[in-house]
């Protein structure tokens, strides 16, 4: 904390005006901050054309803060892309200093720092009150620098990663721009929009931490190795939270499954009884809404588990299992990844028998566990589990999970616990 304060004391002398005085209006705020706000252009080297646009702003140490997703092209393919901004009508080239891929932040440095840089943005030290007016700044759709008024609505409920809910219009191109309070202090960084005046900001505390960390980067700093560590750290923390949660078993048809384990999971469910075929289907599942963006084709940090129950009183067993074979054949991982990001899945398939500790009933299922390693983000894996029971004449339950961007130990800890969950409940079940 002392160190963080020290950073502020160093930068405060050059910070943008509007200190502890009267709250300013939007026009004053914009005119004060305009020069320290940039459109970030990602240029493709060979064609010399822009491939992505975003916004950024000047912060302590004459660094430019923006979103990781704005500069992800440059981070993943530094030989192919470069970063460019306009500063006082001159083009300036920048490089990526470090990133916080989990919170979608990046810090950039000037390749040749100009002498007369404008004033830096100040970071807010207090959390706004709900309803407080904020101003989001950025360059939407390449239309020019814009200021948008909106309200602070606290942190989004039930998410593992903190995001501020900003009720204002954040549009494409404003990513990486700051949202400031009426004292022109940065409260959050524009990151995403759900449309209809629902925007999301990364809390400024994440930027503070990144600024602090950026002062002590090692000589041989490798941004992609660091990204792997960051993702591994946060997915480990997610897994700790999941395993520490209450693993409450719930009934689904004749089976026992896992309910909602942590409050940052979104859970859903549905059922259907077909009167003609006299079949009962029940589906339930939970997933986290936290998705970590790595590239357009690659997202990670996504966790999900799902259960599906099928029962048909009238069908003959061969007919039931033909249907069951089709129902359980289409499972796919919950996250996207491309050939440059991950290797192929390798699976282990077994006929697995487990026992319900409550009633000693056994449950036999075809269990498959598949793993694919990350290529650039070393030490991380996507894991996929698929279980489908095959011991009852005409009822069955499927259990499935995807965990993306996890370390081996996190994945194995979860698997060991998950395989023991599904069981047949106490009602008499005819084999």
């Amino acid at each position, binding site marked *: 904390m002392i160190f963080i304060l020290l950073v502020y004391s160093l930068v405060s002398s050059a910070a943008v005006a509007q200190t502890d005085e009267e709250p300013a209006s939007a026009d004053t705020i914009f005119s004060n901050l305009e020069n320290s706000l940039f459109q970030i252009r990602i240029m493709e080297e060979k064609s010399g054309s822009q491939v992505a646009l975003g916004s950024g702003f000047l912060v302590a140490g004459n660094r430019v803060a923006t979103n990781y997703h704005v500069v992800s092209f440059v981070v993943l393919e530094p030989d192919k892309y470069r970063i460019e901004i306009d500063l006082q009508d001159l083009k300036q080239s920048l490089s990526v200093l470090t990133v916080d891929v989990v919170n979608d932040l990046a810090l950039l440095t000037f390749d040749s720092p100009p002498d007369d840089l404008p004033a830096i943005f100040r970071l807010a030290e207090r959390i706004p009150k709900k309803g407080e007016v904020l101003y989001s700044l950025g360059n939407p759709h390449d239309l020019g620098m814009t200021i948008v008024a909106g309200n602070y609505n606290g942190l989004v409920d039930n998410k593992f990663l903190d995001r501020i809910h900003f009720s204002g219009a954040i549009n494409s191109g404003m990513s990486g721009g700051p949202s400031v309070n009426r004292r022109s202090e940065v409260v959050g960084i524009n990151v995403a929009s759900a449309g209809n005046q629902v925007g999301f900001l990364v809390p400024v505390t994440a930027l503070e931490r990144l600024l602090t960390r950026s002062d002590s980067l090692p000589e041989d700093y490798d941004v992609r190795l660091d990204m792997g560590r960051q993702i591994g750290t946060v997915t480990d923390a997610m897994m700790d939270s999941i395993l520490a949660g209450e693993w409450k078993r719930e009934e689904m048809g004749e089976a026992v499954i896992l309910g909602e384990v942590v409050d940052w999971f979104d859970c859903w469910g549905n059922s259907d009884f077909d009167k003609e075929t006299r079949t009962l289907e029940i589906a339930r599942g939970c997933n986290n809404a936290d998705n970590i963006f790595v590239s357009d084709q690659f997202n990670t940090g996504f966790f999900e588990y799902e259960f599906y129950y099928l029962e*048909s009183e009238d069908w003959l067993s061969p007919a039931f299992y033909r249907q069951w074979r089709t129902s359980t054949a289409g499972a796919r991982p919950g996250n996207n990844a491309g050939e440059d990001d991950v290797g192929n899945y390798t699976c282990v398939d*077994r006929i697995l028998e487990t026992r319900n500790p409550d009633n000693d009933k056994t449950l036999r299922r075809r269990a498959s566990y598949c793993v694919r390693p990350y290529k650039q983000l070393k030490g991380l894996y996507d894991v996929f589990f698929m279980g489908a029971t*095959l011991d009852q004449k005409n009822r069955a339950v499927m259990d499935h999970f995807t965990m993306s961007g996890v370390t081996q130990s996190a994945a194995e800890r979860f698997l060991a616990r998950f395989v023991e969950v599904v069981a047949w409940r106490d009602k008499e079940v005819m084999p």
Partner: protein
Amino acid sequence: MAIVVQLINRAGAVIATQKFDKDHIVLGRALDCDVILQDPHVEARHMAVEVDAASQRLSGRDLSTLNGTWRMEQNPRGVPGRRKTRFFDSPFFSGQVFELGRTHIRICSAVHQVAPAMPMSRWESLGHALAHWWIYSLLVVLLIVLQIWDSYLSNPESNKLSQYALSALYPILAAVAYAGLWGFIGKNIRHDAKFPTHLSAALGAVLAVSAFEYIAPYWAFQFGLWQWQGTITALFSAITVFALGVVTLSMATHLAGMVRTAVALVVPVVLLIPTLLGVLGQPDFQPLPPYDRSMVEPVMQFRAVTDADEFLEAADQLYVEFHEDSASTSGEKK
């Protein structure tokens, strides 16, 4: 001293043979001719043929006809080709094929050499066995039962049984059409339709392919071969079609050896092309996990059952392989 006249079709197969114990005959539509031809393009008296009693040499004469008499060029096996020359009055070799109007006839002397007897083919006995009515009846019943059962398993609604039974008739009708087509071809080429034999062979092939497809999920489950189920099934279908092709060609045509094999391979190879393209064109990167998709009912399961500890240990081994892979990759880079 005799003249032999054979009526042949355009493939060179003999339709009828007549022998005349005299040294002079006339061919035409007139009822006093020796050989009476039912061809409106043939003159009443079209062609005269003579044989020299001493030398057995044949000679012929066109009797001033409207459409002419034509000497057909023949290959070494006596099959007439497309080229022909106008024939007026000259000697000819025994076995020469002539075109009179639209009719082809071969004229030989009595001393004409005939081909040696062909050995009885093993297909003959097979064809004979397959021709029993109870064989194709049994195959029809088995095929209908299998098709209805399979349709029911895919869509288990007992009120649709009559619909399933009707749809089961399609493969049977296809087999009947197949047997009819090859019976017609066989009738023309070998003068032997063998319709029941072709029908039994076609029904047998359809039944074999259907039965193999039906049992495929079972062996795929027991032996962990689900990834190869489609390829193996396609291969089996292709082999069955090839076998059916060989049997059919043997019974309906004169093709033999490599030629018969090559012709019989055409359809199976066409059937296998999509499978081969699928196997060869598989991309290196597979975004979906290749987890076991096979599944059969409990009474048909014979796979070993394991417990959670063994499963977790096997799962752990997956990472060992990745560590070894990455170690070897970094080793290569050095």
